[in-house]
């Protein structure tokens, strides 16, 4: 997973004419590239949701008289090695990729954020322990860890998501911890502590909401990386199981027809590229929109 450093901190709202969220949205929507990204993401989400309505063919039914036909009017993206319509399979494959992206990042967040909060707020031995374990995981090649985990859990889309999620966790631990350390000393946290709030309340009510923007940015960028990781695992046969389509597994079977049927490799690859690019654009846009240094300029 790309190691993207995020440096965002939300300035506490002081008599702002609009809420921070609103301002962020307004600023986000002013960035054309982010708007483009949002639109493409929305488009793919729509594809995933309405796949059965949009598809003129069955994504699984084979037709052995139509094997590896190039793109034509009846099959816009051509057909694959078992005579299935590639356009339909790309549309259905959207489900696997988006689910993999969102769920694996969800897993990473739900493990990584509590650990990061604990490490950052409580400090001491726990912090050191979590910190060194995080360092160790980050030091090992991401794909090797994911392959080992996915192979261990057994090949399926769900297990691939878990494998990616667990492997992506250290990034969130590290980010959360750093953010907590920065926010911990802010006046309003000190104030909450002075008033005698319990620890959990300080962490969840006063700290967590303030580090949300940074997490949001990283989550968006991580979804992009997770979609690529899912494709890589499926490409290696450790993700979505046939006959259900996924972009990675489509590329896997396309690989041996590169000379005879290059269209089999082009479309799923383009779909991955577009989706991932869009999530990256949205993530970058969010970062700029939430960056306090940029506020003076808006």
């Amino acid at each position: 997973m790309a190691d993207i450093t995020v440096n965002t901190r939300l300035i506490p709202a002081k008599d702002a004419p609009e809420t921070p969220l609103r301002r962020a949205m307004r600023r986000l929507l002013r960035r054309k590239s982010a708007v483009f990204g949002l639109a493409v993401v929305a488009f793919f989400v729509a594809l995933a949701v309405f796949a059965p309505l949009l598809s003129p063919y069955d994504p699984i039914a084979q037709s052995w008289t139509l094997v590896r036909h190039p793109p034509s009017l009846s099959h816009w993206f051509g057909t694959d090695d078992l005579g299935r319509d590639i356009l339909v399979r790309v549309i259905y494959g959207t489900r696997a990729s988006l689910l993999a992206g969102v769920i694996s990042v969800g897993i990473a967040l739900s493990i990584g954020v509590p650990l990061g909060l604990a490490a950052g707020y409580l400090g001491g031995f726990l912090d050191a322990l979590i910190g060194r374990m995080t360092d160790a995981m980050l030091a090992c090649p991401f794909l090797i860890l994911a392959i080992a985990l996915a192979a261990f859990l057994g090949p399926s889309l769900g297990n691939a998501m878990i494998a990616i999620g667990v492997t992506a966790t250290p990034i969130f631990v590290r980010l959360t911890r750093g953010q907590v350390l920065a926010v911990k000393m802010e006046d309003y946290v000190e104030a909450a502590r002075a008033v005698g709030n319990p620890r959990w309340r300080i962490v969840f009510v006063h700290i967590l909401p303030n580090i949300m923007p940074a997490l949001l940015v990283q989550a968006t960028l991580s979804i992009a990386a997770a979609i690529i990781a899912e494709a890589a695992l499926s490409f290696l046969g450790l993700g979505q199981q046939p006959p259900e389509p996924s972009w990675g597994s489509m590329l896997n079977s396309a690989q041996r027809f590169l000379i005879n049927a290059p269209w089999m490799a082009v479309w799923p690859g383009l779909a991955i590229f577009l989706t991932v690019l869009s999530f990256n654009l949205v993530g970058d846009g969010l970062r700029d929109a939430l960056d306090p240094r940029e506020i003076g300029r808006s």
Partner: protein
Amino acid sequence: MLNLLGKRLLQLIPTLFFVSVLIFSLQQLLPGDPALIMAGEERDPAVIEQIRQQYHLDRPIAVQYLYWVQGVLSGNLGESMRIHVPVLDLILQKLPVTIQLGSMAIVIALVIGISAGIISAIKKNTVWDYAANAFALWGISTPNFWLGIMLIFLFSVKLGWLPASGYVPLTEDWRASLASTIMPAFVLGNAIAAILMRHTRSAMLQVLESDYVRTARAKGLYERTVILKHAMRNALTPVITLGALEFGTLLSGAVLTEQIFTIPGFGKLIIDAVFNRDYAVVQGVVLVTATIYIALNLLADIAYVLVNPRLRT
């Protein structure tokens, strides 16, 4: 400063311990029996039992771990079960290949990342900014295995300009060597260009608003001179340092890229070992990779402190 360095070095010990535990649990995680996969079609129970004994696979995992740690501490990373070659020899054989590939990738990443970063900083919020941004972003947005396949299709299969696979050492024939590594290096470099581009952009934006650039402009210097002579020099030093340190990330990226281009480097060594359940090789390579990564990160921290004198407490 020394204090900080000492603290960081001390932290290495538990980190390396966790790395070793993680590496060893890979062996437990990976399903399948290495003795069985070794045997392949020749599955005879007696022979398989013998292999298990020979490689201590019949011992409890904790005992196997101790054997391994003992070996590592005395400089012995074990031996490949598959080809009976010491793991250290394999690593020394592959490391130069991946270093060459990685260096070329870094250069490519710096060229793409810095130029895109400068353009988008100077032409902030214009079409140029977006275009440069998109160009840098397409690198991390493309799965590198797909980009690899497409490049092979275009430049090797269709055009026949570059070899589709293989590796020629620099010492043997430098032209052939460059030809054999340029595509994989591009695929790898492309993926980190975006990170460098983001850093260049923000560093340039900061520098362009600094006093001395304003002074330079006020002196009536050409804009080009201002940017090339004054702004760039200051903005790029940290970016180039960062680029060099991205080498650790590259080792991870090399896993699939080397596989696609049949480059006999670290990445191919490890992924083949994973699929062949050649434990000693997996463990040795991950250990070396992780150590390089940790060392580079340490250097990065030190460099960061040196660049930001305020942090020297």
